[in-house]
């Protein structure tokens, strides 16, 4: 019985691994054959595909472009939104995404990139990057384009000239900006004594360190501007531990009137309510917009939510399609380096905005960048396209700007 079970498990594993390596429908493709066919592509300025089918029904480009997607958490809300976004774009363009499992090390990432090459991918979207420039170089050496990770100066410096590196969207240090805007919202809401929720700052998590730094700098700026503001308590960590509960209670025992959170602040509502402070504390947080936060904004409890645009990583798709279609050269900077295209983020301060953005995030009905927007940054559709045009689109992300485009 035991042997049988062991065999069964082994079989399941073999099948599972085989499925990872060679997604269904690509059995006939020889490993790495597709990238090899395009290995000279970046030097050419001519469209490779002659007479592309410029239809809007998912038949462009003529040949399916396969793209590997490097991910760190298959359960993250933003990732789930991105999956929806790719499904949406799939109705309009001929591409296919090969998702990684939740990767947690550079080794796992390299292995996935190699699998992508073997499966015939022509590009990689670096939603997650632990291997830094090595990941880019590996993709390049396997003949695949790489897009994403513009925040990392190492990548830009080491690979900026690599014809297979396509650059990235760029928000500067996004996390730092989120932190700053969280404090700015509290200042705008006339808060003076702030509880700062720092998440993984004290555990060495870079994202939280950056957000915290942004908050501290914003407080400093406000103070320099003559605004009376101070941090009355810092709460580190996550719920579920005894320390967190103890810190939370101590924090709420202060006379704070504002709470700035580097992570979702939904787990503060119940404690604030239990402490009878629903009307005396205002919250601003880095979070993902959701429908049930609309009421929280309307009630005035939440005064600001800084959020990343969910579909911004989807912009890797047109960049890679352009490169595969032979426009690699056109979408580079004048000095030939890969472009970092400025992009904004959302700072949600009203219930109306929350409702609009949460629909983008959750429902997928409207997107920040819809199929028309994507089409506008594809050279085959828009031969006059310039980097400036791309930049203009990337940074027009507020509710008004999106609505204006529709």
């Amino acid at each position, binding site marked *: 019985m*035991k042997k049988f*079970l062991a065999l069964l498990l082994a079989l399941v594993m073999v099948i599972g691994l085989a499925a990872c390596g060679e997604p269904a429908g690509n059995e006939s493709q020889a490993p790495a054959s597709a990238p090899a066919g395009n290995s000279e592509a970046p030097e050419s300025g001519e469209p490779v595909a002659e007479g592309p089918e410029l239809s809007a029904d998912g038949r462009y480009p003529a040949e399916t472009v396969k793209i590997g997607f490097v991910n760190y*958490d*298959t*359960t993250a*809300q933003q990732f*789930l939104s991105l999956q929806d976004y790719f499904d949406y774009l799939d109705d309009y363009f001929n591409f296919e995404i090969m998702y990684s499992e*939740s990767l*947690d090390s550079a080794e796992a990432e390299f292995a996935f990139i190699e699998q992508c090459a073997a499966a015939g991918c022509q590009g990689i979207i670096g939603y997650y990057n632990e291997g830094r420039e090595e990941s880019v170089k590996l993709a390049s050496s396997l003949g695949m384009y790489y897009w994403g990770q513009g925040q990392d100066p190492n990548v830009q410096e080491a690979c900026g000239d690599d014809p297979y590196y396509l650059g990235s969207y760029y928000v500067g240090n996004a996390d730092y900006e989120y932190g700053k805007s969280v404090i700015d919202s509290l200042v705008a809401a006339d808060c003076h004594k702030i509880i700062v929720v720092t998440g993984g700052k*004290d*555990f060495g998590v870079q994202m939280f360190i950056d957000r915290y730094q942004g908050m501290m700098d914003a407080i400093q700026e406000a103070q320099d501007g003559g605004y009376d503001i101070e941090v009355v308590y810092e709460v*580190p*960590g996550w*719920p*579920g*531990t*005894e*320390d967190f*509960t*103890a*810190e939370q*209670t*101590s924090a709420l*025992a202060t006379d704070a009137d504002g709470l700035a959170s580097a992570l979702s602040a*939904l*787990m503060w*509502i*119940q*404690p604030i*309510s*239990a402490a009878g402070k629903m009307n005396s504390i205002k919250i601003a947080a880095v979070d993902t917009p959701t429908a*049930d936060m609309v*009421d929280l904004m309307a009630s005035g409890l939440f005064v600001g939510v800084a959020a990343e645009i969910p579909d911004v990583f989807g912009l890797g798709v047109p960049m890679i399609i352009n490169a595969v279609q032979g426009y690699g050269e056109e979408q580079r900077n004048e000095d030939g380096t890969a472009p970092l295209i400025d992009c904004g983020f959302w700072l949600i301060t009203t219930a109306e905005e929350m409702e609009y953005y949460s629909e983008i995030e959750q429902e997928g009905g409207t997107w920040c960048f819809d199929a028309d927007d994507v089409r506008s940054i594809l050279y085959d559709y828009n031969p006059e396209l310039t980097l400036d045009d791309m930049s203009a689109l990337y940074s027009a992300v507020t509710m008004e700007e999106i609505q204006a485009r529709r």
Partner: protein
Amino acid sequence: MSKSTRILKNIVITLAPAVIVYLFFLLITNLFGEPGFGVGDNLRVIGYNMVYSGFIALAVSYNLTSGRFDFSVGSVLILSLIVGGNIAKEIDVPEPFGAVLMVVLVVLVGMLCGLISGLFYILLRLPPMVTSLGVAMIFEAIGFALFDSEGLRLYTRQDLLIWTKPQNSFILLALVLIVLIYLLNFTKFGYNCRSLQTGQKNAVEVGVNEKTNSVVCYIIAGGLMGFAGIMYISQNGIIAPQTGLSSSSFMMNAFLPMFIGNALAKYSDRNIGVIVGAFCQACLSSALVYLGAGPSMQTVMNGVAVMLFLIYVSNNYKFALHRAWREKKEKALGMTSAAKQ
């Protein structure tokens, strides 16, 4: 020693760690000029943490003391909350029956999860640690797949979240303790638990059914994780599904209380010992927060506390040994000098 003195002595020894730890930190925090520890709001937090970690430690103790390391307890907490809590949220019941109904539902789902864990364990016959990892992943995945991956969001439902009020949580804990004390001390299940704990092979050979016993242990553990889940959601108002075994971090609260509970078991009852241990741990975490220790320092201190306690427990026989050595040495030297005279 008369029976009443023995009982009195056992009660004193059982409660001593709680009193000593509490007074110790009260003194320390006041010496450092941080009054407020152990009274008012802070005492409420200590009480909450005692109940919350106590439930988790009780759950873990039913399996770990018999050598079954169960990684799935955290995932049981999450899944039972997501399923039981979301159902309770939909049923319209007048206050405070909604909150009670939620406890019943969450605990039942927890027990069902425990039953599944137990069946996996006895049917697969793999090492319990391996089985529990697999079960944890399955429970995490189910919790993630249900209710649009939103987990349970109850922060708008004050009527359901009444269990952090000290009087309510203590009633909950007392009821659970009464049941557990009965189970562990006055039933065949309890007797079997203890014999299997120290002499599995021999116990099985004389007819103790290890399989039934372990399934029951898993069911109890599942139910207790349901209670812990109730405490969690009542404090935080929201729980998100977790994957990649991150749910296993929930059991980290369990170790110190459980070890203290095991050490106190011979003086009273393991369940009570675990709760005393949970109180000690809650005092430690609250005091560290009061003293302004950062989270990494708190983690270190908790680890040090567990280690020191284990060092003491596994070495305390040496005190008696050294005493015996000293007496024997004196006797030997006395004999030598007597022989010389």
